[in-house]
């Protein structure tokens, strides 16, 4: 039996069905992300685990014990909020020690744990400061230390990095992951940022309209999306229409240009099917390792910094392709006739 076991969880607000038949088994020490757009039910699910919301039905078992009827302060769960939620009237050390003080632990133990926690978050000298004297990134690290100081069974993080600047966000997500691995604490992380979820998680739960659409490791989620929603939400995607010419060999035509996928397609000849290609699997010009190609003219070129996004117009449809920018190579000009190459193995096929 898993360490955290959520079965048949349902939540209604009035007649609105916000979480639908949610099932998840989390192993001890795992880092799980709930990823989805706002309003998809990810935060509601997390809050049901924390005890701030009551499920309409279903069970939540932590370490074998059903916690649905326990109050939040009885669940021994550490929680980190988007808004930091440090107590403004307490110092950093008092904030971190708050949970232990409430539990009535002796003063020496509290001091020792606070010192240890300040070390873990690399702010050993800031114990005497008040929250308003800290930067956003420091405040969130203190919030993490406070949640971990009570040695919780479960750590829950609700979009903890959304309020921070881009550069701090990147460094803090590495730090959170490192601390989580070091302490081996089972963690659920809620985010709408696919890069965060992909870079931090052991497994990701992609949610949409209250439903867990796919559960899997980052590589699988990105490269083998189970549903159209997952494919569109995680990463960028070219969605193209093609017509099947020979289902057995996987021969199709895309805007009149033939492509041979070299694998059978589950559709009749003459049927229309949908193709999905990620911009980074496409390249300008022929390459030895690719076995598919399309010809078109450059529609526009966007310089995004490390990446150059070129949109190539075929006969009606447009494909976007990403390539790394190199100082030596100037980008192609709009209107140039170009060849786009790709590996047919990277082409995802869905029914039209």
């Amino acid at each position: 039996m898993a360490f955290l076991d959520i079965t048949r969880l349902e939540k209604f607000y009035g007649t609105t069905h916000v979480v639908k038949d949610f099932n998840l088994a989390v192993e001890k020490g795992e880092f799980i992300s709930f990823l989805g757009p706002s309003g998809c039910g990810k935060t509601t699910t997390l809050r049901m685990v924390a005890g701030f919301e009551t499920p309409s039905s279903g069970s939540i078992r932590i370490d074998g014990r059903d916690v649905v009827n326990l109050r939040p302060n009885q669940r021994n769960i550490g929680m980190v909020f988007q808004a930091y939620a440090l107590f403004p009237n307490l110092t950093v050390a008092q904030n971190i020690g708050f949970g232990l003080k409430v539990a009535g632990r002796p003063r020496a133990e509290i001091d020792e744990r606070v010192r240890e926690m300040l070390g873990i978050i690399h702010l050993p000298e800031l114990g005497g400061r008040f929250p308003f004297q800290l930067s956003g990134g420091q405040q969130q690290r203190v919030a993490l230390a406070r949640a971990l100081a009570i040695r919780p069974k479960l750590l829950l993080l609700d979009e903890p990095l959304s309020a921070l600047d881009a550069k701090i966000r990147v460094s803090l997500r590495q730090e959170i992951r490192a601390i989580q691995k070091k302490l081996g604490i089972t963690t659920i992380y809620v985010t709408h940022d696919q890069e965060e979820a992909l870079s931090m998680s052991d497994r990701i739960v992609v949610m949409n309209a209250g439903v867990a659409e796919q559960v899997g490791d980052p590589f699988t989620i990105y490269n083998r999306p189970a549903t159209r929603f997952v494919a569109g939400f995680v990463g960028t995607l070219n969605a193209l229409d093609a017509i099947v010419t020979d289902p057995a060999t996987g021969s199709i035509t895309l805007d009149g240009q033939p492509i041979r996928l070299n694998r059978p397609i589950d559709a009749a000849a003459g049927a229309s099917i949908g193709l999905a290609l990620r911009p980074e699997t496409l390249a300008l010009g022929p390459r030895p390792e690719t076995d598919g190609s399309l010809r078109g003219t450059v529609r526009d070129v966007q310089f995004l910094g490390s990446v150059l996004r070129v949109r190539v117009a075929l006969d009606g449809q447009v494909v976007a392709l990403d390539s790394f920018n190199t100082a030596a190579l100037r980008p192609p000009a709009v209107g140039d006739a170009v060849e786009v190459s790709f590996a047919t193995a990277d082409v995802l096929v869905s029914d039209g």
Partner: protein
Amino acid sequence: MKPSRIWAWLALAVGALYFALPLIGTIEFSLRMRRGVYSFDAYRAVLSDPQFRATFSFSVFMALMTIVLGVLVIAPTAYWVRLKLPRWRPIVEFITLLPLVVPPIVLVFGYIRLYNTSSWLPLTGTAGGTNLLLLAGYTVLALPYMYRAVDTGLRTIDVATLTEAAQSLGAGWITIMARIILPNIMVAILSGAFLTFAIVIGEFVLAALLNRPAFGPYLQVLGANRAYEPAALAVITFAITWACMGLIQLVTRLQKHTQVPR
């Protein structure tokens, strides 16, 4: 000078005319008891009056009791409404504004009707009981100011998230209230307490109708019968007000976690 600046100064000038002039006039008048020269005779006369001391200390005591009762009733209510019943907020806010628009006289009539000597709870029969009624009345009068002050204080902190953070750390309601909520709205409570104090000290109708020896009726009686002493009393009241204000500023400064605006 831009035309926009002129507006601002005009507004300030109007403000000064309204407030400063009457005040200066009152102060000047209060110093003219002795014919021909300025003196503090009026102040001496007021401060040496035993009735002044008696009514003033009675009103101060009532004011402090009102503040304590008000905080105990209003702080948890306002917190709870913000946390759990946000949809009720307009209703609660409306209720707390009622004392401003229902004349105090209605309140007193109601109290006297309900608690007279022939009723099930004859509070008006004893001085202590009447004082209790007066206290209840004062708390109602103070309600709009106290509630607004507390609610403004609660608005500056993220009540819901702080509560959830404390809960997840194992804290119960009493701990949350005493260790997290109250300390963070202390300044707001003090400003509400200060207004309450000022209102109770000057209140006339309730005290007069319930026939209690409070400062308000004493002020009115003095105002009707003497010339210079009321002016001196008004200045004293005003000075007390400013002292309270200074005290609040001091407390705000001493609170370490609010030294810098967040």
